[in-house]
């Protein structure tokens, strides 16, 4: 939990009988911020340096090659959406002062569809997730994003104003939204879901981060685009997972066995390797192969191999090279909104 204490979290989300019993310190009723909420210009000034513009893959077929990100540490950790924009070896991050830096992908969280990038900076203003704000239905919010890529260079990202209309779970709209993430979201009354806005910041009127603008989502039933944000309470643990997970998966001393596992042995053909970071979608499954027996199908996306996240096709191959062909290997695939984890073994 990224809250100062448990009672704070419970108070804000009001999800449990405990809050009847826990005395709530008065400071929590009035946000402990000195700023007047009316001084919007001051708030915007404090938030803008924490926003970054991200440029990567895309640019064709209405797939915009840009999105937004939020700095969450002074040394350049950036929270953003996990999307095709990051499917590139050349992801550039532009700071609010116009500096353009190369970003390294630290890791991503497939269920929340968030990713962490790292740039080489020091003492940059950032959103302190430990001091993040919170919201409820009716909370007025500000939304910062580079929607439509309007801002270039040192131009400030766009700011919109809205109200949290509801807190709900994306799963409540089962089938209507094609999304891996099914957890709690803030639904916003402002039109914040636009090309390039993913990874933007939703803050309260004091500029405290309360959520991340999610990827564009359109209802397959009504064609309506959903304007939502992933609450910061969900992001905190996921970020920790990405950070520790990626630490674990860093190839410090990976041994390459004499006879390694391969995609061919498992009966998997991936889509052609066309990008620097081609997403590892399964193209074909050989009949009667280990993959076929595991129930994998074409169009499944390989998320994890042997406990390590696999953002690209190359990463899948590399991970398999570290597995002996006589051992079992666990592979997680994403199929639509489902995650399927199977253990495969070559006879």
């Amino acid at each position, binding site marked *: 939990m990224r809250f100062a204490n448990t009672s704070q979290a419970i108070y804000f989300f009001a999800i449990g009988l405990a809050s009847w019993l826990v005395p*709530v310190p008065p400071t929590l009723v009035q946000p402990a911020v000195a700023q007047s909420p009316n001084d919007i210009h001051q708030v915007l000034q404090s938030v803008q340096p924490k926003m970054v513009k991200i440029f990567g893959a895309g640019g064709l077929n209405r797939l915009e090659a840009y999105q937004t990100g939020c700095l969450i540490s002074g040394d350049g950790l950036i929270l953003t959406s996990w999307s095709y924009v990051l499917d590139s070896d050349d992801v550039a991050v532009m700071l609010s002062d116009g500096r353009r830096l190369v970003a390294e992908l630290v890791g991503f969280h497939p269920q929340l569809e968030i990713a962490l990038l790292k740039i080489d900076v020091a003492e940059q203003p950032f959103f302190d997730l430990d001091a993040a704000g919170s919201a409820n239905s009716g909370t007025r919010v500000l939304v910062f994003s580079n929607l439509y890529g309007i801002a270039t260079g040192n131009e400030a990202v766009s700011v919109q104003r809205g109200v949290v209309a509801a807190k709900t779970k994306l799963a409540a709209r089962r089938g209507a939204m094609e999304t891996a993430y099914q957890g709690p979201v803030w639904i916003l009354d402002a039109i914040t879901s636009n090309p390039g806005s993913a990874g933007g910041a939703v803050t309260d009127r004091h500029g405290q981060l309360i959520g991340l603008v999610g990827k564009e989502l359109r209802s397959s039933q009504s064609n309506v685009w959903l304007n939502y944000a992933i609450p910061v309470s969900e992001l905190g643990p996921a970020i920790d997972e990405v950070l520790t997970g990626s630490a674990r998966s860093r190839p410090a001393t990976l041994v390459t066995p004499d006879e390694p596992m391969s995609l061919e042995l498992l009966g998997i053909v991936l889509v052609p390797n066309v990008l620097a970071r081609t997403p590892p979608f399964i193209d074909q499954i050989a009949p009667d192969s280990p993959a076929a027996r595991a129930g994998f199908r074409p169009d499944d996306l390989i998320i994890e191999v042997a406990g390590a996240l696999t953002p690209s096709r190359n990463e899948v191959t590399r991970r398999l090279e570290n597995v002996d062909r006589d051992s079992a290997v666990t592979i997680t695939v994403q199929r639509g909104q489902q995650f399927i984890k199977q253990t495969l073994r070559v006879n």
Partner: protein
Amino acid sequence: MMGIRQCGSAAFAGAAFMIASGVFQGVASGQLAGDLLAARQAEARRIAVIEQASRASCSVFAASGQGGGSGVVISADGLALTNYHVVKPCGMYMHCSMPDGQLYDAVLVGLDPTGDVALIKLLGRDDFPTATLGDSDQVRVGDNCFAVGNPFLLATNFEPTVTWGIVSGVHRYQYPAGTLLEYADCLQTDAAINPGNSGGPLFNDRGELIGINGRASFEKRGRVNVGVGYAISINQIKLFLDHLSSGRIVDHATLGATVGTDHQGRVIVDNILQTSDAYRRGLRYGDEMVSFGGRSIRTVNQFKNVLGIYPKGWRLPLEYRRDGKTTQIEVRLAGVHSAQQLIELVEGRQGDSMPGPRRPPQPDSSKSEKSTIPAAAKKLIEKKSGFANYYFNRIRVSEIWERYAAQGVAGNADQKWRVEARLADQTPVTIVLSQTGSGMQWGEQAAVLDLDLDLSEQVIPLESGGLLPALHLWQRLVTLGPARFGDVYYLGGLPWNGVAGNAHVLTGTFNVVQMQFMFDPVDSQMIGLEMWTDPHRDPCVIHFDNYRSFAGTMFPSVIRVQNGDQFQWELFVDDVTLAQDDP
């Protein structure tokens, strides 16, 4: 199910709030009452501001009944701003409704197709409610703002729609479609801007006009608002207002050079025309742009934002850096289009890349229109190629000329002027001007114009860029008047050294020579002129200063002459004699 659960948790949170705040209830309720009062006062203020500002808004309808948009009245005699793309299908006559429930006839005045602005004139009153022009450079991101207009052409009862939001971005740049409809240095708002809002006002929360709404980002979302609307800044429009009042189709500006960003993120000249004024002033390929129009330049967009808000012919300071050395110059901006290109773009097929409401193609409504245009409007419509409505140009020329003539200046046909003057170094200069033959003597040199030859071939004295032909044509305008000079029209307003505000400019072409005559904005005295014998060379620039009475007429006692960066003369007039010309 979701709704119920939502209610449950909201009630729960409410209960928690009451428990928590119970201890401080006394304080809280006092504060609550105060907050409530403040909120109600703020709301009342907002309602009053919206009510007041909305009165100046109007809805624009094509007389044929097809298409329309919004507008805003800015002068009591009915001048109103709207978008070029709104009036394009309307032609020169349209209907405008206002919140007072009246439908007014309106005629087109001026067009700025590149900036997507049109000036129209509502008829029938001299006391229209008007919007107060604000200062869009003072607008900050986060400011409250509201749009008034006719989205989806809903205003069938003439009541406009008001949408409220914040300013999401300032100094935005949105690319043109081809060379038209460029939104430079514009405002971005999350107030809902929908098809039909085009041309309508964007006000700040004091009810001052800060922009004209005209464009939105839609892309894959279909043609409805997605939280991103753009307004042309009112400060850009202020720079164009005199031009728009001229009844012309006005052009935007180009530097004659383009810029790009190099690998270090510097803005660098990556292409420059040798025929451009910027090149003549010393700007070269590879120079780093430091500032332009008084703004520092760090991105290409910032450069485009400056360039995009000025009319053709404007002069701007430009600072560039080369080998570590910074140089400041003043550059004259050329037009984006040739006159012919602009006419073709405006009179040509209806653009299919309009950012505003898409309308069905127009049947030839001009014929049916003619019969239905009321006489009062018909009087104010004069078609002429290159003009949005020539009527207004004709009126402006005669207004300026009447006021100039009232200054007691010379002005009879068949006059011969003899001007005795000296330069700062006491060199005597004698100039004789008459439409049957002009000549001058300076120091040891003398020359006369051969009126059978092109004046552009007779650059006398050579270094001056043509002082003698320039004064000859000055005398022609002054003695014959604009109607007999040749092709003279009102250009608009341009900055002129030594004048607060902009000089009114009459432009005329005679014998392949292009003239611009500058008139004081206050008393219409002629304060200078510029003459081009070649559009790609520096003009001969003449300032008329310190008018005083010579031989019973007002005449400039100091005439300053300039050509490029090299030539400068100051003529002190000692005597002027006017005589009847005997050819």
